């Protein structure tokens, strides 16, 4: 232990980095514990509400679709069966080159609808609008390809009729109460302008007709690791930040927004890489600058399940994109940093994301390399290097297992005790190899963003469990 006292400045930087990052994560974990406990105590009395009146807020669900012929009919059908008193579904066909539109037309008996279209937020030209003869609350917008999901979302915003809109990915798998749970913050706090929900990994689960039927762990190791990653990111990444009203991302896979608030800030940014984070930051910026009370909330219930990539190449592309989007969004809204009006967003969350999420991988990798080199050359003792690696990896394990404890306290999503043990094993193993791998991908994304290179989309390979039916 005395070795620690003889450290030089460089070593201290790396030690300090790890100590600070884990301290913040630890604090977020504590916030999340309190928030979830409070939420669960109340949840028991509100979860089973099944009486609806005209006082519930109607919602427009917007599903952007680009070349989704295999799954679009199932996802739309699922959306039409969601348990919610008053809502409409708007599918935006973003100039698909496959049979997406034709599939929709024949399945839902779509007929051309003479919509008095008005453009409130920018998007590519709309070709035609259809309404279903079978479901009067289903409309399909056929538009020119705008090159981004954001562009399609904006077209949906232009035609939706209700005060709230819900952004859903065409391949998101929902539960029948997803919408009801996500809308609750709007009822409980009139200043709410957006809410997100916990996204979980669908690989391994049984999905029928676009709904989740039973939950199980995936068999693929990469997917398993992502289960733990998502638990960490959502259960206490976002729950913790929500406690400070500093949620920086409402996931594009499932989020509910106040339409007028989004129109006020100009809709989605059509060329941003991470359009979901960009929009969330823009909302923060606009509302804090105009000095209004607002709340961007988060519900911990698992409400949306998504397909995780099971091969390294796709996963790599996804992570490069994420990192690129993070850099872009943060730099676009750099005005928020330490702005006297921006509160915890500008003073805590954004600096944290900048230092630890965006540039963190660089520091972490440099730390590993430096410690190894230094120990080899005898600049520092192997003991110090050992402590460093023990700390870096051990705290990582602690963090992941902390997320599992939180999950165990709250939702018990994975039914078998065996699943729990498996997740623990994964939480330990991910620190040897996987974590370092994502580190390199994230650095690639960071460099890509710094050089202004546009990242490519990974072609998602669907796992078998999802394509059935």
């Amino acid at each position, binding site marked *: *232990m005395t070795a620690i006292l003889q450290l030089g400045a460089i070593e201290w930087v790396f030690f300090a980095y790890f100590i600070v990052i884990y301290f913040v994560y630890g604090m977020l974990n504590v916030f999340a514990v309190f928030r979830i406990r*409070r939420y669960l*105590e*109340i949840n*028991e*009395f*509100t979860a*089973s509400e099944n*009486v*609806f*009146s*005209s*006082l*519930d807020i109607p919602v427009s669900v917007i599903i952007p679709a680009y070349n989704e012929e295999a799954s679009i009919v199932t996802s739309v059908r699922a959306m039409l069966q969601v348990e919610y008193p008053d809502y409409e579904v708007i599918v935006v066909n973003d100039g698909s080159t496959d049979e997406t539109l034709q599939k929709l037309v024949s399945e839902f008996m779509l007929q051309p*609808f*003479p*919509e*008095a279209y*008005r453009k409130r937020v920018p998007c590519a030209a709309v070709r035609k609008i259809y*309404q279903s003869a079978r479901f*009067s609350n289903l409309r399909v917008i056929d538009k020119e390809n705008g090159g981004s999901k954001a562009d399609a979302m904006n077209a949906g915003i232009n035609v939706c009729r209700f005060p709230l809109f819900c952004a859903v990915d065409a391949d998101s798998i929902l539960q029948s109460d997803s919408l009801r749970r996500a809308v*609750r913050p709007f*009822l*409980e*706090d*009139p200043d709410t302008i957006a809410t997100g929900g916990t996204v979980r990994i669908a690989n391994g689960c049984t999905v029928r007709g676009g709904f989740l039927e039973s939950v199980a762990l995936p068999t693929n190791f990469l997917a398993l690791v992502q289960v733990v990653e998502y638990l960490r990111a959502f259960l206490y990444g976002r729950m913790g930040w929500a406690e400070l009203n500093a949620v920086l991302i409402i996931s594009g896979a499932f989020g509910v927004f106040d339409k007028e608030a989004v129109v006020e800030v100009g809709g989605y940014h059509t060329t941003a890489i991470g359009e979901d984070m960009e929009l969330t930051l823009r909302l923060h910026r606009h509302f804090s600058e105009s000095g209004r009370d607002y709340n961007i909330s988060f519900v911990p219930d698992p409400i949306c399940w998504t397909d995780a990539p099971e091969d390294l190449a796709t996963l790599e592309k996804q992570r490069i994109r994420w990192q690129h989007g993070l850099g872009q969004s943060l730099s676009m809204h750099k005005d928020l940093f330490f702005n006297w009006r921006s509160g915890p967003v500008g003073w805590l969350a954004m600096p944290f994301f900048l230092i630890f999420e965006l540039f963190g991988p660089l520091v972490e990798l440099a730390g590993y390399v430096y410690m190894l080199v230094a120990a080899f050359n005898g600049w520092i003792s192997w*003991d110090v290097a*050992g*402590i460093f690696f*023990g*700390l870096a*990896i*051990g*705290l990582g*394990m*602690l963090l992941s*297992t*902390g997320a*599992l*404890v939180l999950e*165990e*306290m709250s939702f*018990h999503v994975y039914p078998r*005790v065996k699943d*729990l043990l498996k997740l*623990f094993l994964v939480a*330990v193993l991910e620190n040897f190899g996987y974590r370092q791998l994502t580190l390199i991908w994230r650095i690639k994304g960071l460099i890509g963003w710094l050089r202004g290179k546009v990242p490519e989309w990974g072609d998602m390979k669907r796992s078998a469990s999802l394509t059935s039916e």
Partner: protein
Amino acid sequence: MIAAAVTVALTLVLLAYSLGLRIAHILHARDLERLRARCWPIFAEATMHKTCDSQSDLRTLRHFSRIKLLREWCRFRALIRGEKGHAFKQLADDLALLPVARRLLRRRSTGRKLLALQALGFLRDRESLQSIEQLLRHPSVSISITAATALAHIDPKRAIPLIVPMIAKHRSWPRNQVGRILNIAGPAIVTGPLCDAIESSDPEEAAYLLQFYESAALIDMDSLIAKLLVSESDPRLLAAGLKSVRGHIPEVIIKRLAQHKVWYVRMQAARLLGRFGRREDYQILEPLLSDREWWVRYRAAQAITGLPFLGPNALRKLCDRQKDRFAQDMLRQALAEARLI
């Protein structure tokens, strides 16, 4: 090495803790299932009888934890209504659940308090009225709204005049739950206090209160609304007022509001005229089809499409006759929505 050992040890502690939680969860679920299998048939049976005399059944239930029994009783009670005709409530008396609920009300935990409030409401426990009334001002939203719900169950005549003035101040009370409270009390009790509150609050609060009109008696509100529409100028209140009209209000009032400078007032006027469906109002509606605001045109077009004296052919002709392109587009959309073209 010590650092590594500590983190590994801590990780193991967390693992053990999770396993403990999981085991507790499984045991709890099993226990609950056993309890349910026992008590639900007895509960269901009680709803079919005027009195219940199944003492032998109850004896088996007495082995279970009172709190769990109370929770199941509440859960079942939430499914049904009309307790006068059957013996379900009597079951709670036979099982001595009331003292349990009263005791839980004094607990600090939010969960316990909520359960107690729900139960005392269902049990209509007048003795707890005062302690529940104090909880109306509790900082936790879920406790205060559940307390309000309980009061509406126990003594609506006393509770509603107390609760209604709080509604506009307590915006964190979810609207749908407020609506439910007013529904429990019923229009006969709600109308008076609601009208009083609307008349005595500022325009913004009055506009908020008006959305609960559905829970109040209908005719009494119309005269109040007509009065507000003449005397008030806050556009939000005017729009909320127009939205809440149930019967009829004088034409002059609407005519004036259909030309109001704020668009959502014009929109609500158009909507209301559509509901009236009177021939003479058509003259007011048609100009709104060319309004500069999309929503006003939309509601006006919907209103015109629904007019009882215009058949599909007349409507289609009307649409072709429009000189303003915006009016024509909107009318065509409304016709399509009504499946008339």
